[in-house]
């Protein structure tokens, strides 16, 4: 089968898997999401590790850090683990742990992106890129302001509120740091005719997964707290978006592993089919 067709079918499959999370009954959707999200992420971790072994130098490091990111992100997606930690260690310690994990996750993804940038030849963002960043900065500030805790909430539980605010600040920071990577990659795609379709899928899935919460927040008008408690792994649209993003990363990674084989099969097929 043609490799593009395989990738399209895989993407449709990913969409169906993700849609299941909110079309099945609510409780089942919740269980489905809480299983699927870490499951797809651990699959992504294994695939990224396998891809890393296919490359050397910067590209190997890029995929190794991506695999570490997916592994840590998988841990952050095991909801029962965090519920257990909240109940046994308390709010503050668990929030500290979340923050450590968040920083570790983002360090991995940023390192991965830094190595990606070393591989691509385009190093300067063009005018349109700067305009996009210029629009994104006030948007991030707006999201941050929306999530500022009230004075009464701070006085009631200052540590928790400050830690939660820091989580949002880190999230905004990572978006602002990742966007230039995406912009440079898009510029690179346009400049070079031979860019990898699978690598583009991986990058797309990665960015999609990270920013989807905030897109959802802006679209729904709900606070991040409300989203975390009522929508995360509850069989919601947000869960479907997450599963889709993770599946796209996995599809991209799997495609990257199988790409040479598919391409070679296409050659063999073309050479063995008698055209007249």
């Amino acid at each position, binding site marked *: 089968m043609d490799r593009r067709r395989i990738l399209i079918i895989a993407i449709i499959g990913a969409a169906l898997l993700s849609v299941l999370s909110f079309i099945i009954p609510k409780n089942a959707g919740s269980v489905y999401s809480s299983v699927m999200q870490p499951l797809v992420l651990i699959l992504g971790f294994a695939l990224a590790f396998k891809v890393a072994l296919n490359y050397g130098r910067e*590209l190997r490091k890029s995929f190794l850090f991506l695999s570490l990111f997916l592994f840590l992100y998988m841990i952050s997606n095991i909801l029962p683990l965090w519920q257990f930690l909240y109940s046994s260690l308390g709010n503050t310690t668990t929030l500290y742990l979340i923050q450590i994990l968040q920083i570790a996750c983002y360090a991995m993804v940023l390192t991965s992106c830094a190595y990606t940038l070393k591989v691509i030849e385009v190093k300067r963002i063009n005018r349109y890129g700067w305009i996009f960043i210029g629009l994104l900065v006030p948007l991030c500030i707006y999201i941050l302001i929306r999530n500022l805790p009230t004075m009464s909430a701070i006085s009631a539980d200052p540590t928790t509120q400050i830690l939660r605010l820091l989580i949002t600040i880190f999230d905004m920071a990572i978006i602002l740091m990742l966007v230039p990577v995406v912009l440079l990659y898009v510029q690179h795609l346009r400049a070079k005719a031979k860019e990898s379709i699978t690598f583009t899928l991986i990058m797309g899935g990665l960015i999609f997964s990270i920013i989807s919460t905030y897109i959802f927040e802006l679209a729904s008008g709900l606070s991040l707290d409300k989203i975390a408690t009522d929508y995360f792994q509850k069989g919601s649209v947000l869960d479907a978006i997450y599963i889709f993003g993770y599946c796209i990363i996995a599809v991209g990674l799997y495609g990257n592993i199988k790409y040479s084989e598919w391409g070679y099969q296409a050659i063999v097929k*073309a050479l063995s089919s008698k055209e007249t």
Partner: protein
Amino acid sequence: MDTELEKLTDEVWQSALGRIMKKDMPVVRTSLGDDIDLYVPQMRTLMMVEANPDIASLIYSSSRVSANRNVFVIMKRLGMPADYFWKFEYWVKDRAFETLRKVINKVFTAIMNLNKEGNLDLLDVDIEHMRLTVSFKDCVECAGVTAEKGLCYYHAGTFSGIMSALLNKDMDAFEITCHAKGDEACTFLIGKKDDPEIIAKMSEYLAIAKIDTGFDERLNTCLQGNSLRGMGNLVNVGYYHSMIANSLIIGKAEASSSSFDIGVDYGTKMAPVIAAFYNDNQIDVIKKYYRQLHHIDVKMIEVGENVDIVLSECAETATMFKNKELLSFLFGEIQGLISQLLNRKMAFQTSEFENSDLKIRLSPRV
């Protein structure tokens, strides 16, 4: 003219691809077949290079450009993704070697085997320096020739063009061993065009050097029909077309203006050797010679003082654009040969196509 020649080389590539795709390709020549003795393209090129060493570089450049352009088309026709070798310089060595070798063998080795040009194989991939080594056994370009330096410029250009297109890198190639130098096979090193070591070796490889063709000896070997290589002495006529076109695409002015004179010299030198070999009357010698080489079916008629020659199934014009500029070497060759064999100073006068035949008139030189 350039576009016509480019079209010709493209046709050769596409026809070769069609054959490995098992398409029903039309027979080029019904009587002489689709192959020609490798001596014909070889000696024509060597005579040209001997007379004008700049032509080596022209052949290299134009065959590189032709291969590059056609490999993109081939990749597309075979459904090979453009990003197949994405970031090849970051691949681990084993994967790079195995994947590239598989593709080369499946497509390009197959094409060259079908054309009987030689046996291409990937020997090594140096990922760190982005250098590839390929071997080319039974090379058609140098089989039976003795030389002090590598002279397979057409294939050096072709291999660099193929790799440049496959890996999406600007690459150059030069010979590190050549059968003509006494090595077992021709071996080419292909590296990035901006690699200082490659630049230095390239200028050395393409540097103007006097080539001694060892003409008489080579022609005798050819006439005796001794097998020069594992795949025999014949090569597909498409290769010959490609060689002619590539020697004319770039710098065609220098090449074609001198090719008639070089042809005359070639024909003159050839005449006593073939006359001695066949030991027959002049007309039969010419017929036998061109037929033995699968080159042309010749009919000669003496009309008064003129000599009319009808060339059927001529290798140069089979499927080729009927462009007389491409035939100037052959016209010169026939003038030199006939003049010498008839022991009369003849001069090429006119030529015209009659259906698929080419009619030439030679008249006494005034």
